[in-house]
């Protein structure tokens, strides 16, 4: 890793919020697993907790951190350092620190209680969701110079993906219940990284039988290897596209 990235990781790890985040994830994970005698049930509960908290913390912490780094960015820019390198280092620094927090907080208990392929999948999903929302934070913080606005955009995006999107999807399902929209639903799922992650896990938990015909279509698509690879490719796109758009904007930004 490069030297700028190292500075950023060390700076973030000193931040108490990341420590508290790790601690909260750890308390949640350990207690969920020790309350449920069945590790599958535990995973299911933990899934909902993770899909709510991890995106929230990742996107808001990263957005605020990027805004607060404006001085640091300015200082580095007057040095012989490539602009894109500064932005990449910031991205890697934030991702690595939040991933470390996720792994210590939730990863270790998952591996301890559910060292199955579902557990591994859960870990992978958590990693991807963290990085996706760091990338979204980059997008929202480059969108405007105003810190309050930028954080507002980050919160709204989180609300959209975590809460609102499901409502919209449910609405669509009810409205178009008479039409064969199951295949389209698979496509719509790709528009929300959190939903994509949830479905990936649910299908591996064998509770998809409860999801009816749509579930069967999902199982058909995401259950096999091609589907899983497709899902992770889409998640990867969710990392790359927001970040690259922000990088393009950053390279043209006046400081």
């Amino acid at each position, binding site marked *: 890793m490069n030297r700028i990235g190292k500075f950023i990781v060390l700076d973030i790890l000193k931040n108490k919020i990341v420590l508290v985040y790790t601690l909260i994830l750890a308390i949640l994970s350990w207690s969920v697993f020790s309350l449920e005698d069945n590790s599958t049930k535990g995973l299911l509960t933990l899934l909902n907790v993770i899909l709510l908290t991890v995106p929230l913390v990742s996107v808001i912490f990263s957005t605020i951190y990027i805004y607060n780094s404006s001085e640091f960015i300015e200082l580095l820019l*007057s040095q*012989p350092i490539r602009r894109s390198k500064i932005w990449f280092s910031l991205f890697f620094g934030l991702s690595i620190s939040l991933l470390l927090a996720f792994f210590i907080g939730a990863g270790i208990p998952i591996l301890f209680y559910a060292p199955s392929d579902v557990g591994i999948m859960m870990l992978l999903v958590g990693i991807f969701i963290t990085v996706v929302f760091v990338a979204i934070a980059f997008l929202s913080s480059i969108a405007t110079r105003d810190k309050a606005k930028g954080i507002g955009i980050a919160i709204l995006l989180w609300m959209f993906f975590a809460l609102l999107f499901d409502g919209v999807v449910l609405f669509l399902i009810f409205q178009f219940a008479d039409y064969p929209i199951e295949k389209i639903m698979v496509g719509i799922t790709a528009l929300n990284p959190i939903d994509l992650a949830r479905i990936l896990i649910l299908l591996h938990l064998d509770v998809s039988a409860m999801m009816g015909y749509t579930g069967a279509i999902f199982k058909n698509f995401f259950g096999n290897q091609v589907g899983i690879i497709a899902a992770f490719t889409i998640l990867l796109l969710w990392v790359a596209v927001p970040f690259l758009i922000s990088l393009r904007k950053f390279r043209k930004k006046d*400081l």
Partner: protein
Amino acid sequence: MIEINNLSKNFARLKVLNNVSLSCNQGECIALIGPNGCGKTTLIKSILGMVIPTEGTIKFKDTFITNNFEYRNHIGYMPQIGRYPDNMSIGQILDMIKELRKSDIPIDEDLFHQFKLKDILNKKMRTLSGGTTQKVSATLAFLFNPDVLILDEPTAGLDPLASEILKEKIIAEKKKGKLILITSHLLSELDDLVTQIIFMQDGNVQFHKTVDELKSSTGEEKISKAIAHILKNNTHE
């Protein structure tokens, strides 16, 4: 050394730089002066690549600076208002920059010693006064012995003692044949420093003259009076 060609910069609808063309060479010590908001800092930031020009080109040592960053190895920049990460100490900032640069050039810690920064090495940047922050900025600008020094209001906020130290340092560097660009409002301070004057107004370069030319054309002995003379004549016209 620095060639600026038809440089224009708009911030939204506001035109900050308007077709600026300049050429600065080694060994010159140039004062960039003009009223507030005339585009001095924008011009400097364009040279540093911090502001991306709307039109025009800048060449540094015969290479275009767009999408280039290595040229900044040769520039020491002291900003008007230095902004530094709040929770880092002076020592951490200096160490970080030194580690990032990892250059073989012997570093120049003259100002570091003269400003006695060693005694306050552990102070956090957020607790520093404006003047002390300026001292850190100055130390960083001179640290790597750059060929070009760009100083934006270097003495603003410094106490008389510190500003005298800085001025002597600038003169010493000038004698080594470096290109020095200074912006300042304190014209009286520039007398024993600069060899050339660039006067800007509303994003345009009004004139670029050597100090001797300026003095002989106006018949004044001091830069401040010569400039005042020109400004007065301009308003009369």
